[in-house]
């Protein structure tokens, strides 16, 4: 683990403890709302809203957007949007308590900042597309889906981690 001058900066929780809390949280989420968490739903709502605001006619007729664009219902009024907001706030709280908040690019010393950002963008693009196909990302599908023993959840989880392990060697220059 990395220790900077102020030694508390990058001391994280014990992962098992974090996993325990997270597991209890997911269980509580299911207990209270009957659904799991999700991370891309909020972004999707933003996309729909943006397109709807700029080109409402088009949005109303296009196959994808029309499902989410309703006469009187704002697509941003979505459970996931609020949850996404919560994630950002919660993470900010945690980071600021530990003094981890600052604007920076984290990258391996063997590549440049620029390379890192390009690949981040590429990774994001892939995730955006992939999550739509899979109806979920790691949080929504793999995490919440597997908790209720859904077939799709496990398929997604195995797919993501399996693929990543398979191709990890190709991208090793980025990280190690």
């Amino acid at each position, binding site marked *: 683990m990395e220790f900077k001058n102020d030694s508390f900066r990058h001391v994280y929780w014990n992962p098992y403890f974090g996993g325990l809390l997270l597991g209890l949280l997911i269980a509580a989420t299911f207990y209270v709302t009957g659904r799991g968490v999700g991370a891309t739903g909020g972004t999707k709502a933003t996309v729909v809203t943006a397109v709807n605001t700029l080109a409402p006619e088009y949005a109303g007729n296009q196959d994808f957007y029309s499902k989410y664009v309703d006469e009187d219902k704002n697509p941003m009024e979505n459970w996931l949007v609020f949850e996404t907001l919560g994630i950002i706030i919660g993470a900010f709280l945690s980071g600021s308590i530990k003094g981890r908040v600052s604007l920076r690019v984290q990258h391996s010393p063997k590549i440049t900042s620029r390379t890192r950002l390009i690949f981040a963008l590429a990774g994001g693009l892939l*995730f955006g597309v992939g*999550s*739509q196909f899979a109806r979920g990302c790691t949080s929504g599908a793999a995490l919440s889906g597997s908790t209720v023993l859904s077939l799709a959840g496990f398929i997604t989880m195995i797919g993501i981690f399996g693929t990543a392990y398979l191709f*990890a060697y190709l991208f090793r220059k980025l990280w190690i």
Partner: protein
Amino acid sequence: MGPLTFNDIISTEWNYVIALLIGLAFGYILEASGFSSSRKLVGVFYGYDFVVIRVFITSVSVAMITLLYLDYLGFLDFSMLYVLPTYLPAQILGSVIMGLGFLMGGFCPGTSLTALAIGKIDGIIFTVGIWLGIFGFSEAYPYIEDFNNSGYMGNVTLMDYFGVNPYTFAFGFAVFAIVAFTVSSYVRRNVKEIQY
């Protein structure tokens, strides 16, 4: 008797407040466990940091066991929980794409939000990437719609498909978890130390 909002024990106006609170806790836990650091996340694929497996599998296992106990004790109706629908080819393709995205970007959507929150520019760019990716997908939707909706099997659970007993599976998963942790700490000790 849960799920609470579903059975109107908690009214639906609270839904969004609850969403916010849940997100809050989720983000906090993720960030505090170190998921806002992309190099920490990718460590699971290179053997120098297994935090992803440890948190992920622990949480799935704990949540599964908790929910099954709650269901048994009558506090919850397990069959009313949302089960992710299965679209076999689309999901396989999607997860492969996501796996590559994980390697390249070093984040997943949830963790990129935590990175965004603490000011990491690569997290911000990643989230922008997700935005563009969804946008691209939706623009191309009319062409891929058929593939996207193919292989629909309904909201299938493992019990439906393989006929396993959920309790047996949960126990098996817990055993798998312990094995995974043991193996991972063994690997961790034998991989050269990386400073990140």
